[in-house]
């Protein structure tokens, strides 16, 4: 691996967005294949970040800063990636369900998923089943992530899963849910594909759902 990519990994780990961006450009200028920069620079860098986060050595804000740096590098590569036919990132629609304004957990999960290479469509809070369905259809999303923090709003997750089925979209999209009062058995009960207890588990689960 070139020195540039090695240094890129290190800068990414430390959240130095400008350096990562410059390195991506430099590597391209030197003729490094775009796929190699992506895999051996950015993705490999994020893998180290993910490993250390799981080990408890990195804190969430540090992971988010690293993810920002990765995205800065990715922006440089994006036009070339499209040209060279590298498959686009999986799209995830996320939102907090109708009647619920708690968005800290949802935002965190969205940021972590973005850091893990997913493309995020964030619908914000108080999102109706109709809005979820509409967006999943319009965006061609592979994943739908719903968050609820109130037991009074959890039923809206069920309504959304039902609305997806009615719209004929249930087989096109995987549904993952979370939030403090939500449990794995509730996910099973309403016919969601998965539940994740925290942001790290959300990333792992999302990856396995689209694999």
């Amino acid at each position, binding site marked *: 691996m070139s020195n540039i990519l090695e240094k890129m990994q290190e800068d990414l780990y430390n959240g130095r967005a400008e350096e990562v961006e410059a390195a991506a450009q430099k590597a391209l200028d030197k003729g490094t294949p775009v796929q190699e920069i992506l895999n051996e620079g950015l993705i490999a860098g994020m893998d180290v970040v993910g490993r250390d*986060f799981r080990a*408890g050595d990195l*804190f*969430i*804000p540090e992971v988010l800063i690293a993810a920002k740096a990765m995205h800065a590098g990715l922006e440089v590569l994006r036009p070339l990636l499209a040209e060279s036919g590298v498959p686009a990132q999986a799209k995830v629609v996320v939102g907090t369900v109708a009647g619920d*304004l708690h968005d*800290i*957990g949802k935002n*965190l999960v969205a940021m972590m998923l973005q850091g893990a290479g997913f493309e995020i469509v964030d619908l914000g809070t108080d999102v109706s089943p109709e809005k979820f369905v509409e967006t999943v259809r319009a965006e061609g999303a592979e994943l739908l992530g719903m968050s609820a923090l109130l*037991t*009074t709003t959890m*039923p809206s997750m069920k309504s959304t899963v039902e609305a997806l089925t009615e719209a004929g979209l249930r087989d096109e999209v995987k549904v993952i849910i979370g939030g*403090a*009062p939500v449990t794995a058995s509730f996910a099973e009960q309403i016919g969601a594909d998965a539940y994740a207890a*925290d*942001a*790290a588990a959300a990333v792992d689960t999302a990856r396995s759902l689209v694999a």
Partner: protein
Amino acid sequence: MASNKTKRPMLKYLSDSHIEQIHEGSLDILENTGIKVELEEGLEALDKAGAKVDHQTGRAKIPSELVARSLETLPRKFAYAARNPQKDCLMEPGGQLYSRTAGSPDFIIDIDTDEWRAVTVADVLEIYTVMDACDGISILTAAFAQEWPKLGRDILMLREMFDHTDKHIHLRTDTVETFPHMLEMAAIVAGGKEPLRERPIVSLLEGHVSPLRYIDVMVNALLLCGEYGIPLEVCCMPMAGSTGPVTMAGNLQLLNAEFLSGVVISQSAHPGAPLVYAPRPMLMDLRTGFSLAGSIDGEMAAVAGVQMAHFYNVPVSVHGQWSDSVLDDGQSILEHAYTALMGAFSGANILVGAGSLQETLSISLAQLVMDDEINKICFRALEGFAVDKERLGVDAIARVGPGGNFLADPHTVQFVRGERFTPELFYRGSVEGWVEGGRKTFRERAKDKARTILKEHKPNRLPEDIAKALDEYVSYAFESLEK
């Protein structure tokens, strides 16, 4: 003449200059960054009072002079009145400490199986019964059954509460539509809207969304509580690292600015409306993102928050028994003990949290009973002891002399009662006695006590005519909600 009582212990972190810096920083935030207000009536009140309001964006910038004016009209002293006047709680800065249970759990640790499960209607009645029976608990806060309908569960909750306690009732409400009905119910029990204003037998806690966002429910609460004269705990809970600065001081400063903006909205619409400062500084767990409730850091920040309340000379509630534990176990007992003692020593008026777990997501009857005991320990610790000639007992010591004993000395007989607190749930005997008693742990003894209360305690029910009037009102309220 000097008092024979020892001093009230007062825990303080902030120096006068720290307090000044936090106050100045808060004014800067309100004047230059401002707040977002998502209910037109709130914006109008602010506009009239002299804030710079942009009705399009909902942004309001609050000049320092308006903050000062609003602080002046805050009442310094009022009651959390009770249906039984002997159980009134008087709020005044630096005054007596009361305790209240934590707000709106709807999961419970099953007392028989230890399972974490949804709260049922039967549980709600048991929860209120235990809260009512514990005399270390001064004020009851709402708990919800998951079987109740989503819209109007707060109305049903209040109906049951009125029938299960004659202590002060602290409300939670879910929606802008249901809250006026709850106030009408309180007026029925109090004997009218004026008697309710005179003796508010209910109070509310409500919060904005940190940072600096006043959603409709909160603005509505500030306005309606003012209109009815119901005390409102202005709950400020920025979470260090996510919805607030990660630093202790920065998060506290944001929290304080948020409290002040609540004061301004309230006092602009209803000068003299009773408010309680409710600092609930939260921390994001940096590894999982969860919000931390039982952390030592959070309790330190809360104590500093109480100092800010004292600086503004307003009553204050502090979280006391808060924990992140998912079970009423060693962790929750430890967290509740230190948060409660620190909260008690802060000089706050209300210590909040008895019975709660996972912050306030779940509740346990055993924990309630244990926390009743922790409350009594806190009250005892605040009470201190007397130091005077009689109690010092130089004569008694002379009488007994070197090598004697005090067992049956007149001085001992004179003071044998009243010098000590005797806990109810602690086992302090021999190993043999403990084995003979069935090797019961602290937790099992707490469960036993809760079961006994459920068997024996009879709450002071509502008079029949009032109960009937309330039922009629509840039916009416549900009809109008359905429309």
